[in-house]
């Protein structure tokens, strides 16, 4: 290791005095281990919230409901208010100038713009 790396103590030491079980003891080297953690979705599923009274707050039911306000439509490219939307690309645009740009965009960019508001075509 380079001296400046050692001086900055960049690398976490493998043995730490204050630990009862060291990292290398917990996860021995060269031993393959499957995924030992759950994603949030799996965690929530395992919580079995349906078994508890619905008025008891939990991670799932404290989520906000969908917005009641009408969604303001903005131009995907410029961010201006967008009165129009292009039926071919589904992009929203503010004026003729932007429309020209929209029509000249390669499909990859169109999809990326759509993906920003989660409206892109997803092939599964």
């Amino acid at each position, binding site marked *: 290791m380079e001296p400046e790396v050692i001086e900055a103590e960049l690398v976490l030491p493998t043995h730490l005095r*204050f630990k009862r079980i060291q990292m290398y003891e917990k996860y021995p080297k060269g031993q393959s281990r499957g995924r030992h953690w759950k994603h949030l979705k799996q965690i929530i599923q395992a919580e079995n919230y349906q078994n508890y009274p619905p008025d008891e707050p939990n991670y799932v039911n404290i989520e906000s409901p969908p917005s009641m*306000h009408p969604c303001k439509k903005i131009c995907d490219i410029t961010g201006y208010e967008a009165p129009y939307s292009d039926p071919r690309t589904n992009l929203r645009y503010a004026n003729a100038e932007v429309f020209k740009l929209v029509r000249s965009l390669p499909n990859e960019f169109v999809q990326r713009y759509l993906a920003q508001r989660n409206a892109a075509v997803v092939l599964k």
Partner: protein
Amino acid sequence: MPFVSRIQRQSDYSLFSPSTPIVIDNGASYFRIGWAGETDPRVVFRNIVQRPRHKTTGETVTIVGDHDPTLLKYFDCTRSGPRSAFDSNVVYQFEIMEYILDFGFDRLGANDSQIDHPILVTECVCNPVHSRSKMAELLFETYGVPSIAYGVDAAFSYKYNQQHGVCAQDGLAICPGFCTTHVIPFIDGEPVYKGCCRTNIGGFHISDYLKQLLSLKYPHHLARFTWEKVEDLKMEHCYISQDYGSEARLFQKGAKEAEEKTRCWQLPWIPPPTEEPPSEEEIARKAAIKEKQGQRLREMAEAKRSSRINELENELHGLEFLLKQLEQVEEVNIPSFLSETGYVSKQEIEAALMKVTQSLRKAKGEPKGEQAEMEEKNDPAINEKFHLINIPDNMLSAEQLKEKRKQLFLKSTTEGRQRAKQKRHEEELERERKNQEDEVKRLENPELYLEQLHAKYKGLFEKVEQRKRLKINGGHTNGNNVSGGVGRGERLNAAQRERMRLLTTAIFDRGKGEDTFGARDEDWQLYKLMSKDNDDEDDGPDEDESELARLSSRLQEVDPTFVPKSEVGTLQTAEVPRFRPLTKEDFQIVLGVERFRCPEILFRPNWIGIDQAGLDEMAGVSIRRLPSRDQELEEKLTSSVLITGGSSLFPGINERLEAGIRMIRPCGSPIKVVKALDPILDAWRGASAYAASSQFLTQTFSKADYYEKGEDWLRGYQVQYTL
């Protein structure tokens, strides 16, 4: 940059008694650890872990937090990027969490055999019990912690600000964080989780949105938009507009105000060196070099030629000498003499001699035609060759008749050749004459002449081109397909269409009615029309083309600036991309609408595809969710709205939030929105003050509690914030 990591190792760990709690604010973006009762955390770093490979030794190492990026050059970070222990705002990867805790305790200066201090850790609202129990297990088993308490960061922040008189006992805490935004109502100084709500949007989404927008707007500077840089841009330039529509309209109209609000990030850019036109000297020098090279080539060619002539002459002399010798040799000795020389007979030697003489002549540069002309010059002599022609057939024998026929044939070919030659000669003369006429015209009025010549050339050129195009593409070229070729998409020309029609009718007419094909002679013409190569037999264009060639050569002679059109044409159709020198403006990242478009997603999560209520609506949702609806309480809540958390730093958020809440509340209700003293550190400070109180230990649970009381108890576990 408002967030600054502090990772110096602390040395006073042993000075704290085991009863002093350690306080950890475990946020999704930053990890803060310090001692209870202090005003600031001791160690602060980004809550990420990297496991790169050391470039020279090849071992995989663990690097926690953010470090000087220059030190990372010794590591190969391409395999794995920075990883977080958080999925949304819940800790789910406890291996990473362990690395982070290792690093945190290590930097706090821990050096005993275990962490012998009670610990207060923050968690999200309604943390799933799985995450809670894993965290407790980790702290108890691996670090030997005596007791733990969990609390909510936003609640600690609210309590801290309440203690400092910023907000009241009853109120709303609005906490836009890194991954999520929470609204927690407080009644009598205690959070009411029943009335709490969460939208999955936060600073991460804002930065990500900005990053996406910028990389779509400036695809050429993609590499510039690293996560860290975009975070910096967000924190420095983003603000929340009071009314998005009107603000955007300002920019759309290009108002002066908008211009002032536009920020520009100039990327490092060096103007390209301006190229000076080469000086006279330079041109002269280059010409001299070229001339010299040409001279050398000519000399080389000359030397080669002379050596070849020499060689051939030597051979010629040798052969002549051989012939002379052969004459002197007696008849009988000829075979033996010849076998020495390698030739079979005298004729062969003579043939070789002839050949050498010819090639010598060629090498010396004498015209080859001379010989042929010489042959034809003695025409009368040749005429004598055909002596039999003029004699009538009946006066000749069979042998002679045969000979006569042969002579007749030979004579006609010779005459034909001569006629062709004559024609050529006449043409030459004609051209010469035309050129001379032209010359006269030119001398009379050079400009007019040149103009006429150009016009003529142009007209002819177009005519020829037109014909060519017709031939190739049936007159329907769209300009970009001069090279032609009748492809699938190409239209056929008239002749080709006709041919196709004939072919198809020929196929489909079979067996329809009475077959009278062949009754008339014209019917057989059909086959001629059908045959493929009937469309380019006319000699018409040849004349034009030769005239065009003449004009072109003439123009080249007269006009030094003339370039034959065909070359120009190919250049034009190739669509040479016009290169524009890159300017300073090409290296500017302009932040206009983006400055307020990105943080606007806090209020309109719809824009990034998250179908949930925005910040202002959440306050209303939260109030509605409270079990007891009572106007007095609601008014109390709205008159003490505290906004805290990392994403509340955007300028203008207070006013906007106030306006937003006013819209959903009944007319005339009191609304007061205040920002926390320090939206980022207040959570830790509140937790520190909380842990320092004497009653803190009553809120903790030990390892024995954890194992005895079980998971159900842990699910319901909740600290009392008012001690």
